């Protein structure tokens, strides 16, 4: 009897069936934002690290400042700032854009630090040897240093990227129609937590493979000691 009530509360098939299409819809929105964040964040992070390699003092000061700020602020504060505070000075963006922009900026900041640490880790002799064979600074950076640096950065970058992609759930707070938002809305309409169970299952389906991918990358690209 108890068990039946429990099943009826958390695994109510009727409710689940009703809201499954919504959760599936949310699933694709989550995937969409996650991919957009990964692409934009890593590309911007790499670009910033490359710019930093030119060691232009004034420019680097602003890169370091920006990266520090983005690492210190909680992503949810950024999303809420973009969505609720910026409109008061006339800058408006959709909830989707606010979530995407906030998470991309955070990922870019972490990625920049990781790429930069990787570039610094390449021994100075590599730079000197490449330059003495007649390669230009830019050629040395992109053809000699970067490929070695990127290899070092893959494990920490993968882990950080996974952690930040999970932040897509924060979009629910500003009503982006991703998994959590759909589950939460369905929960308040039906006053039954089954949609939350469905939503949780959707996250597991999405992220368990990603967590395993992260583990695999860690062993595959482990630093040789």
């Amino acid at each position, binding site marked *: 009897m108890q068990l039946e009530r429990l099943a009826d509360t958390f695994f109510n098939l009727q409710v689940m069936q009703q809201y499954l299409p919504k959760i599936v819809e949310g699933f694709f929105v989550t995937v969409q934002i996650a991919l957009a964040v990964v692409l934009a964040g890593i590309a911007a992070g790499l670009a910033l690290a490359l710019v930093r390699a030119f060691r232009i003092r004034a420019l680097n000061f602003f890169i370091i400042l920006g990266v520090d700020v983005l690492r210190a602020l909680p992503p949810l504060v950024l999303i809420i700032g973009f969505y609720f505070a910026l409109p008061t*000075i006339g800058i408006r963006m959709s909830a989707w854009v606010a979530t995407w922009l906030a998470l991309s900026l955070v990922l870019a900041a972490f990625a920049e630090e990781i790429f930069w640490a990787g570039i610094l880790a390449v021994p100075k002799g590599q730079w000197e040897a490449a330059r003495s064979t007649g390669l230009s600074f830019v050629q040395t950076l992109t053809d000699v240093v970067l490929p070695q640096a990127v290899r070092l950065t893959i494990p920490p970058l993968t882990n950080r990227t996974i952690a930040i992609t999970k932040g897509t759930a924060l979009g629910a707070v500003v009503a982006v129609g991703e998994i959590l938002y759909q589950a*939460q809305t369905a929960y308040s309409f039906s006053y039954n937590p089954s949609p939350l169970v469905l939503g949780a299952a959707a996250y597991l389906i999405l*992220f368990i493979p990603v967590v395993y991918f992260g583990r695999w990358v860690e062993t595959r690209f482990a630093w040789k000691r």
Partner: protein
Amino acid sequence: MDQLIQSFFNLEILSQASPILLSGFWMTVKLTLVVVPLGLAGGLVVALASTSRSRLVRWLTVIYVDFFRAFPPLVLLMFIAFGLPFLGFDPGAFVAVALSFLLNTSSYYGEIFRAGIESITRGQHEAARSTGLSGPQTMAYVVLPQAVKNVVPDLVSNTLEVIKLTSLASVVALPELLFAARQAQSLTYNATPIIAAGIIYLVCLWPLVRLLSRFEHRQIALH
């Protein structure tokens, strides 16, 4: 420019909002002081379980860690805050936050401690045992101190993330800093409280970020 100052750095609004912001700040501090030690202790238990001799215990630990690492923390929090009352147990916002953070952060801290324990060579263990220390004594006095020392950067990094995550508590209406800022914004129709909250986070967490940045460079440079 004038409009920017009016909407973001309005001193009049700030002085109106400061009592709310201050109480929110203290709630965030309180939350951090509960959630971080709890997560560290939970993580230590998870790490010790993952070195257990019983295969079943190790296996269960892996499932626990992977399960809670796959869940976005906000999903876990909502599930606990909205789901538990249906089991006839309403934990209230603070306990719901503490519980979901315990589950989430103990799996992250657990992985970090495990990596630390694995970085200690078997010889240390064997040498300690041969001097007559018991298994638990070896773990507590020989292996763990060295293990923890090896993973300090990761522990600091995760702690920074946990402190930032406390802002999620605003979603279940726990009146911490972000919640207070949003409340003050809707009372004053002005975004200054949100900007102020951002600045408070920044001032408090910047030293940690600087420290970490130094650690990270050293870490990659060593390899």
